[in-house]
């Protein structure tokens, strides 16, 4: 009796699986016609949900814009999006879904380094080009020739910050306080190398865990060392606490941040006056007079009611690059890969993209921005080829 029941349940479940699989397979042969499908994953829930929200808005804006203009060569674009919850396991199963079931021709990662890095080999294996919008870890593009990066690899940004600290801000004694993950470690190491090469002394290096909120102890320690600059590769949540608590402790030194705190709501909105004078390296120059930048900022603000941040701009650019390449080469994954590899001097929101190198790393200038009156403004730009040329291996 019992066995029969189990058997019946098993058969039912099996039938259901077939049914579900059958439904999914229905779209197979529509790939040549119908909309062009572009995959997208981002942390819409979990601890990075705020960045996920920003990039998802940017992705929707990019797709809406191209469809309004009549699509690409007469075909509409469809965004196939998933939430990875900042979970590497989830990112991997999304990659499997996008490459085997959804028939996307290309993918944009709107997620962090950990998740993007785990997913990259799957896209490479499947021969689907992926552009990482803002994840910085060097291993991402090492997955292969189908993987491209839309923001600077950590090494470039760290080196640029080293130059900003020593040459533009004249710092001699520097403390580093970085987040203890791929992002923070990559930036801290390359910054330290460059700063020491230029003659500065690193007086302390401290790290903290993602989500840390209490920095008074370590800042009190840094205060005693009396450095003239604090380099802070952190995300907006932690970065805002560091600048607030530094102010509370009267730690009156120049703070140099990264694109990790390039966020209007999350960083400027929380840190308020304590953020005044903070300088960051990023890829979005809000004061740029180029039309595409001002249009993007205006459209984003009109649509969503707040100013875009670095992650939104980078994601928007990843889509713009893809649209451009698809228009030139057609909606075929191999053609898209080739188009990306050959791209030259593309006018994007985050600067003019000179091109992607063999590894798939972008080359463009590093922007230096300063917080004045509660907004990011132009402070400088790093264009030295020896700094902004990404590594080839």
């Amino acid at each position: 009796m019992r066995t029969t029941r189990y058997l019946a349940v098993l058969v039912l479940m099996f039938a259901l699986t077939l049914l579900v699989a059958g439904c999914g397979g229905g779209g197979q042969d529509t790939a040549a016609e119908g909309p062009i499908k572009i995959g997208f994953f981002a942390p819409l829930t979990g601890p990075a949900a705020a960045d996920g929200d920003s990039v998802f808005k940017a992705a929707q804006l990019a797709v809406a814009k191209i469809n309004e203009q009549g699509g690409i060569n007469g075909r509409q674009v469809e965004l196939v999006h998933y939430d990875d919850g900042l979970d590497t396991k989830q990112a991997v199963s999304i990659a499997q879904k996008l490459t085997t079931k959804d028939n996307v021709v290309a993918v944009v990662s709107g997620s962090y380094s950990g998740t993007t890095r785990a997913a990259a080999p799957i896209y490479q294996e499947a021969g689907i080009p992926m552009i990482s919008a803002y994840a910085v870890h060097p291993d991402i593009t090492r997955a292969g020739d189908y993987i491209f990066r839309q923001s600077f690899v950590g090494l470039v940004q760290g080196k640029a910050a080293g130059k900003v600290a020593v040459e533009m801000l004249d710092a001699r004694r520097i403390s580093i306080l970085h987040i203890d993950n791929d992002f923070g470690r990559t930036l801290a190491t390359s910054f330290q190398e460059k700063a020491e090469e230029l003659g500065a002394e690193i007086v302390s290096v401290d790290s903290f865990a993602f989500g840390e909120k209490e920095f008074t102890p370590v800042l009190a320690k840094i205060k005693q060392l009396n450095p003239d600059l604090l380099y802070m590769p952190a995300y907006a949540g932690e970065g805002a606490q560091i600048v607030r608590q530094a102010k509370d402790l009267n730690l009156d030194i120049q703070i140099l941040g990264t694109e990790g705190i390039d966020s209007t709501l999350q960083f400027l909105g929380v840190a308020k006056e304590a953020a005044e004078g903070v300088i960051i390296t990023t890829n979005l120059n809000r004061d740029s007079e180029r039309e595409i930048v001002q249009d993007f900022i205006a459209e984003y603000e009109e649509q969503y009611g707040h100013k875009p941040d670095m992650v939104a701009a980078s994601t928007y650019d990843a889509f713009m690059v893809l649209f451009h390449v698809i228009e030139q080469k057609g909606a075929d994954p191999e053609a898209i890969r080739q188009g990306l590899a050959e791209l030259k001097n593309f006018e994007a929101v985050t600067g003019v993209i000179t091109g992607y190198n063999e590894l798939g790393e972008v080359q463009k200038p590093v922007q230096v921005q300063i917080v004045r009156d509660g907004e990011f403004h132009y402070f400088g730009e790093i264009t030295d080829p020896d700094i902004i040329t990404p590594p080839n291996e």
Partner: protein
Amino acid sequence: MILQQLINGIVIGSVYALIAMGATLVYGILKVLDIANAGAYAIGAYAGLFLYQATGSLPVAFLGAVLFTGLFGVLVQRVLYVPLLDKPPLVPLICSIGLFIFIQDLIRLLAGPHIRAFEAQLPFRGIELPYLSVNAIWIAIMATTAVLLVFLWYMLNRTKLGLAWKSTAQDLEIAKAMGVNVDRVVAFNFLLGYGFAAAAGIMIGMLYNSVFPTMGDMPAYKMLAIIVLGGLGNPLGTVVAGLLIGVVETLVAGYVGFFLPRDAIAFVVLIVILLVRPQGLLGQRT
């Protein structure tokens, strides 16, 4: 510098004590590990923020949010915990984890994933000395925690309700047989427990000027370390354990560096102390 670090540790420790107090009270009576108490912490912070924005009065926002969250706690025990009481302890535990995740995502859907600033104007100023700065919010946190804890001590030790609480904690069935209105004690217990969590949430929101949906993640596991360290269900032990962990974390972070994530330190302290005193700091050997 040592004074600065100590004060900082006490501030953090006071908040830990409040966070863990809610779970301690619930455990004391129902023997349920209430993870959802960390959800009440986030609810309290959001309720406080919205009430403050609506009324502009900090006391109204604080009391309103504490009361609102406390009533939510009463609802939770009526609808969820009481019906599950005769099930094995794992069932209410899983239920509370589910409720915690539900609360976090509900907040994200209702209020959005972004960090919201909680800028409160306090009517007094902090202390600024060359080598010591104590800002106004720290003073407010230490004072509020002290008032709440004295209030709790008074309730438990000097009132009839406190006597009923203690007898219910010792043995729910016998207390019932002796004529204690156990339902009321349990409801009151949740009112207090969730109210305390809300108070902690509001204060942390103000301290870091940020309120966000996943803010309950840290208390969700740290309160476990604190209530176990304090001797499971012992309110006084929880206060001592909260302060101890706050101070140790701060001193380690200040003098040794973040060689471990701050949150790991709490568990290292827990392991070391349990090796010496398996019943917790103030727990009784049974």
